[in-house]
């Protein structure tokens, strides 16, 4: 049985049906004029071979092309793109089944950050009263490592609300280089979580080794097709409207292998996309449709997710403002567009502008997490533990995020109201009304033990002290101490024998990193 996720029975929508159609029409118009600038030869050839208008850009020594995509290619691609996508996992109970027309939300971690944020709780003594001591959380940034990635996957394996795992930290150990980063990245994730693993690829030359590793772990090539325990994210279109050479090449190769892949576009309203909502929506939709069309031309039926990471520019720096209200609005709009196409949506929430866990981080992430969840994306890349606009990962924040996702999940339980229940309740009301104290306490207990009542906030302290961070840290340590199901010894040996470049420290059977 796959993971349940959360079903949103009545998703919130911002766009009217007419506005959805207008955005769709504008996107089709953009794909034909001005079209896309393409820096990848194979993509240009694929489009040309299928009737798109492709012309070399003058003065570009034939390394860039303008591609104008006719409407029919897009509509055919939308027909051949699967509306149901399964993302597999080492533990079959952790598989994700996403249907384009079903608002079943899965929460996934990610994206990749360069910086890992440690937390410590030093004690400070009052200058005026040495008997007064307080513990204050201090956050210390450093470069991410393989061990950090293992620890992150390990903890996320145990966080109930995490449905799938996108690598959270860029591994920057001295032993890691361009040729071994991908295999180590994927193995560190796969070995520490039994949930689905998704990542981008650093070096296309490593795709074969990564897929081979996944095949060994899945039990063979066919088993991997049946149970794709890895998938890929590719940002093949750089905004505005440019097919990038290397990521497009990666995308084509992944499509040829038939593995699930996210067509991700991340325009910034104000700089790489129009400032106005209609403008960025028409453009991001065109960019994603261009990617989906290329994928279906390369390999019809390739499972592609409609990936949307739109963001608004900050007015003070022109950097990303993931915490802005508009960013949440764009994401909700994208969910609606993907549903219009009946293609599962990879959406974004929870990315905040603030640099450390705290009140701003809580407000920003909770605001978008609630609203984007309610819009019903299938694959919500919800920034577990991420801070500072996707550039910092803090495991403590991920544990805090799990608590608020539990609250959202609890809120979204379906109401249990029917004639039979109301009949029982009316009897209770009559009985209680006849008592002197008129309290329903005796009826609380069965409901309380049935799990119907939401629990208090997970990190609520006793008394007036705010101990949220300290309690979340205790929880984090508990989860790190809890074992995870690693890949078995024989399979691990085979992976290490057949896949070059793996760090010996990752082999838990020879005393390696057990996170």
């Amino acid at each position, binding site marked *: 049985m796959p993971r349940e996720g959360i079903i949103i029975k009545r998703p919130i929508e911002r766009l009217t049906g007419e506005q959805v159609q207008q955005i769709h029409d504008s996107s089709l118009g953009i794909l034909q004029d001005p079209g896309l600038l393409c820096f990848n030869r194979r993509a240009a050839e694929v489009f040309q071979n299928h009737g798109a208008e492709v012309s070399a850009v003058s003065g570009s020594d034939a390394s860039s092309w303008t591609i104008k995509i006719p409407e029919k290619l897009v509509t055919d691609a939308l027909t051949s793109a699967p509306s149901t996508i399964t993302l597999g996992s080492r533990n079959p109970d952790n598989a994700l089944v996403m249907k384009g027309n079903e608002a079943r939300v899965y929460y996934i971690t990610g994206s990749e950050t360069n910086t890992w944020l440690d937390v410590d709780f030093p004690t400070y003594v009052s200058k005026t009263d040495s008997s007064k001591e307080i513990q204050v959380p201090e956050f210390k940034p450093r470069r991410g490592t393989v061990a950090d990635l293992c620890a992150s996957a390990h903890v996320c394996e145990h966080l109930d609300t995490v449905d799938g795992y996108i690598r959270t930290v860029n591994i920057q150990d001295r032993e890691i280089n361009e040729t071994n980063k991908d295999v180590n990245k994927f193995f560190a994730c796969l070995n520490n979580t039994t949930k689905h693993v998704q990542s981008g690829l650093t070096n296309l030359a490593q795709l074969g080794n990564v897929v081979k590793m996944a095949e060994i772990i899945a039990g063979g090539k066919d088993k991997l097709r049946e149970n794709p325990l890895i998938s890929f994210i590719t940002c093949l279109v750089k905004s505005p409207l440019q097919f990038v050479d290397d990521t497009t090449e990666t995308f084509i190769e992944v499509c040829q292998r038939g593995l699930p892949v996210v067509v991700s576009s991340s325009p910034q309203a104000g700089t790489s996309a129009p400032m106005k909502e209609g403008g960025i929506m028409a453009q991001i939709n065109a960019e994603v449709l261009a990617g989906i069309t290329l994928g279906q031309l390369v390999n019809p039926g390739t499972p592609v997710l409609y990936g949307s990471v739109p963001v608004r520019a900050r007015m003070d720096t022109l950097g990303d403002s993931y915490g802005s209200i508009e960013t949440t609005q764009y994401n909700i709009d994208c969910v609606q567009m993907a549903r219009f196409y009946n293609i599962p949506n990879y959406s974004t929430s929870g990315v905040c502008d603030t640099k450390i866990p705290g009140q701003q981080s809580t407000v920003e992430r909770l605001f978008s997490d609630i609203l984007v969840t309610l819009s019903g994306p299938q694959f919500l890349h919800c920034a577990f533990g991420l801070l500072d606009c996707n550039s910092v990962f803090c495991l403590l924040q991920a544990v805090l995020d799990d608590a608020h996702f539990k609250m959202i999940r609890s809120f979204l339980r379906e109401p249990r109201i029917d004639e039979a229940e109301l009949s029982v309740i009316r009897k209770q009301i009559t009985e209680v009304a006849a008592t002197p*104290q*008129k*309290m329903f*306490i005796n009826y*609380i*207990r*069965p409901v309380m033990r049935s799990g119907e009542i939401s629990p208090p906030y997970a990190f609520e302290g006793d008394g007036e002290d705010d101990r949220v961070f300290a309690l979340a840290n205790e929880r984090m340590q508990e989860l790190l101490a809890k074992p995870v199901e690693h890949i078995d010894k024989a399979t691990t040996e085979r992976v290490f024998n057949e896949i070059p470049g793996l760090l010996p420290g990752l082999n838990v059977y020879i005393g390696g990193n057990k996170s």
Partner: protein
Amino acid sequence: MSATKLLETLKENVIQGRKTSEDIGIDESLTGTPGVVEIVEEALEADIPAEDLINHSLTAGMAVVGEKFSSKEYFIPDMLASADAVGAAMEILKPLLEEANVATKGKIVVATVKGDIHDIGKNIVSILLKGAGYEVVDLGIDVPKEKIVEVVREEKPDYLGLSALLTTTMTEMPVVISALEESGLRDSVKILIGGAAVSEDYAQEIGADAFCTDGFQAIKVLEAFEAA
């Protein structure tokens, strides 16, 4: 059923918070079997002394409930269910205790003051105090000072608990205290106040004897008065 078995079953039903046979308790399979009220009646018919029931079953059961509450296995509804069951048992045992001249832990009159109709907190306090072995006379809500004075005069309680939720009604508390002083009854009773609007400072300001944040603290305050 033997006396020992009856005492054990009574204690277990206190822990389960089952006042009567209809109550579900924690273990749903007990539904339909005798609860605290029925077991106490059966025990009295079997001539088991009331003091044994109190010491070996009711008090011992509540001690276990208290431990479970402290360890967060039980929540307030569980504690209240057990206290309510013990309170019902004490009502049955009261005439026997009086007959045998066994002293109770004390009598308390509780009331939500005039103008205020909020009573959830006051009711919880009443249940917990009954469960702790106190005799509770609950006057209800919106109680005028005249009524309180009258009941204090007639019932001669050891304690008076006044409750108010609102800043607009807490001012009735000193009015009640003044009325008791004018009637010459103030020194006969310890006055406790509680409710969202009031505080320790307010208790001192109006001349009350104690402020209680909740029912658990009320029990501690009364025990401290007893010990003094």
